[in-house]
């Protein structure tokens, strides 16, 4: 039996491998290769070395998008995780109607990014209208609008992960701590938070990467306006590739830099969190 599984392993792997190669590996390799080409269609281009990478920095668009994106991600990672954790604590405290609230908080996550963007566009414009402004009148409105939107969408999802983490803490552990005289603060600091370290790792990872990969919400809420000042990396790459004639290769080069950047940040964060998890365990 063992032997025949080994014998046919390759056959069973084949369907998944084919999909992986066609949908991921080949486009990924082509993407990297094309970033060194000037091209109009993916099969028709000529090699120009590092020229596309040089062209990324002929204007400040990419750098501005990067700075905007980093600011946005830092703030939203903190606010989402604090908000989600606070909600998770509340909803595991045995308040009445917990399940209803959990469902309600989770619901925004089920709405698509474009729709979310439009909803918040209406809400924010409705509020700002009385001041004679709109969400695109000033980049700071767009920035905070995106932060609010991102929180609204993600807090519910992260909350579910935190709730799962909190519920996994053995009741005995908490009881023992209480008997030992731990107050609410100590309980939180020394028992709950160390015990849910894996949830913190996964939530930080998810919010960090989705902050950098944000696209549809950005497009629907501000479309980068005013004047690309609220444009994040993904939208900037899209606009470079599809919106600027002759810049397909530059868009591709930006995408390669973007991939490296997000991978680096995410891997660093994972390594850091894992280390803390081990220390806590």
């Amino acid at each position, binding site marked *: 039996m063992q032997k025949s599984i080994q014998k046919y392993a390759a056959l069973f792997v084949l369907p998944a491998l084919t999909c992986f190669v066609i949908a991921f590996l080949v486009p990924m390799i082509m993407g990297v290769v094309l970033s060194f080409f000037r091209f*109009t*269609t993916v099969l028709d281009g000529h090699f120009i070395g590092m020229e596309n990478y040089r*062209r990324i920095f*002929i*204007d400040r668009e990419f750098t501005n998008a990067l700075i905007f994106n980093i600011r946005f991600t830092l703030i939203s990672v903190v606010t989402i995780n604090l908000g989600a954790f606070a909600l998770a604590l509340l909803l595991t405290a045995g308040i009445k109607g917990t399940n209803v609230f959990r469902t309600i908080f989770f619901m925004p996550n089920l709405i698509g990014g474009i729709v979310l963007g439009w909803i918040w566009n209406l809400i924010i*414009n409705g509020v700002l*209208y009385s*001041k*004679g*402004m*709109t*969400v*695109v*009148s*000033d980049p700071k409105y767009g920035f905070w609008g995106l932060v609010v939107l991102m929180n609204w969408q993600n807090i519910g999802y992260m909350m579910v992960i935190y709730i799962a983490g909190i519920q996994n803490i053995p009741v005995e552990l908490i009881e023992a701590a209480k008997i030992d005289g731990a107050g609410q603060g100590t309980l939180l600091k020394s028992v709950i938070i160390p015990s849910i370290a894996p949830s913190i790792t996964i939530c930080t990872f998810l919010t960090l990467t989705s902050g950098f990969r944000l696209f549809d919400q950005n497009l629907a809420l501000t*479309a*980068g*306006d*005013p*004047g*690309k*000042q609220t444009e994040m990396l993904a939208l900037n790459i899209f606009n470079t590739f*599809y*919106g*600027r*004639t*002759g810049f397909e290769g530059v868009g591709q080069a930006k995408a390669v830099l973007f991939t490296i950047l997000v991978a680096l940040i995410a891997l660093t964060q994972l390594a850091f969190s894992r280390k803390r998890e081990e220390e806590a365990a």
Partner: protein
Amino acid sequence: MHAMRTALAGALLAVCAAPALAGTVTVITSFPKDLTQAYKTAFEKANPGITLEILNKNTVSGIAFVRETPAGQRPEVFWASAPDAFEVLGRDKLLAKSADIANKDVPDKIGSYPINDPGGMYLGQALAGYGIIYNDAIMRAYFALPNKAVKINSADEINNFATLKAVVEDMQKNKAALGIQGVFASTSMAAGNAWRWETHLVNVPIYWELREKNIPFGEKTRNFDFTYSAQMKNIFDLYLNNSTTAKGLLGAKSVDDAMAEFALGQAAMVQNGNWGASQILGVKGNKVADKDIKFMPIYTGVKGEEKIGLCVGGYLPPGGVTQFLTWLFSSPSGKAFVKNDLMFITPFNTFADNELPTDPLAKDVIRWMNKDGVTSLSWDFSIIPSKEWKNQMAAALGDYIAGRKSWNEVAAHGADVWKREFDLTN
């Protein structure tokens, strides 16, 4: 003597570098399906045995489609509303020459504007004009006011920026009496809606600078100094300060919003072209009578602007290429579509006088074209180095409206980015 600035627009046709498949003609176009479906039905009825396949895509996806389709399967005709698409396709060598099949009876140029691409890559089909569209009923109401501050008595007498400014500012003061929310419709700055400024309005300073530097029409230049930026500021400020809409809200306004304001009588003036007729006449609750929709030139305060008249230009269909195009411009049913559904002005000899357009703006463009002693401004925005330059201008104008940039910074940015984009695209 009245001056009028209009520019060429209309539809352009290009023949893609692909052999026609027998029995099928494929046309790729940005015109909407409800319009082209009528063409298809009528054409196929008139030409049994030929299938007309129309691919309705916006211009950007149309270009992508042609690029990504292998040679031999590409559409035969690319039908777009502006020449930009053909520049891109031409650069990628995706267009075939079609000059030899052009109609010989049509002159090379109308005014200073060549009808067809000098390289023969695309042919014009129709012409259009743009300027400041005004509602003459509101203007008459203003000139009848007992307390009006200007000496002139009709909109026809406005022939320079100083007069326009005096009239507009006094009208704005009397907006309650005139029943309007502002003289000018919203200066639409929403994403993708700033073309009336970054392309059409900017044409004015480009035109004057090129004439001053003796650069002939259509010749590209690396150095655009924005010499006439102050004049552009004149009119742009006039639009902003005498508007239906507060400056802070303009970032969310679209061209459709502006045209609706005009159609509903909330604004007396709007900068747009004769293609906007359908957006006025088609608005539900339209309050503007056909006879009151008129054009005036975009005055900016340049010396001698009183003598500037209409730009006359035209585009010609590549008649011999496909039966479709011959049908479109020579058969009664095809011509009726061009006139009634597209509202194009078609100055070609296949069109009799009674086949000329009947919509008020197109008629007014013709009126300006036939005025004596006026010289038209040409469509010089075709030499803008790239779409990116227009995007940058739109962003800078948005910053100016919000007070984040001074006008001098806007002008300097325009001049700098022009050089950069010229170097990148040439």
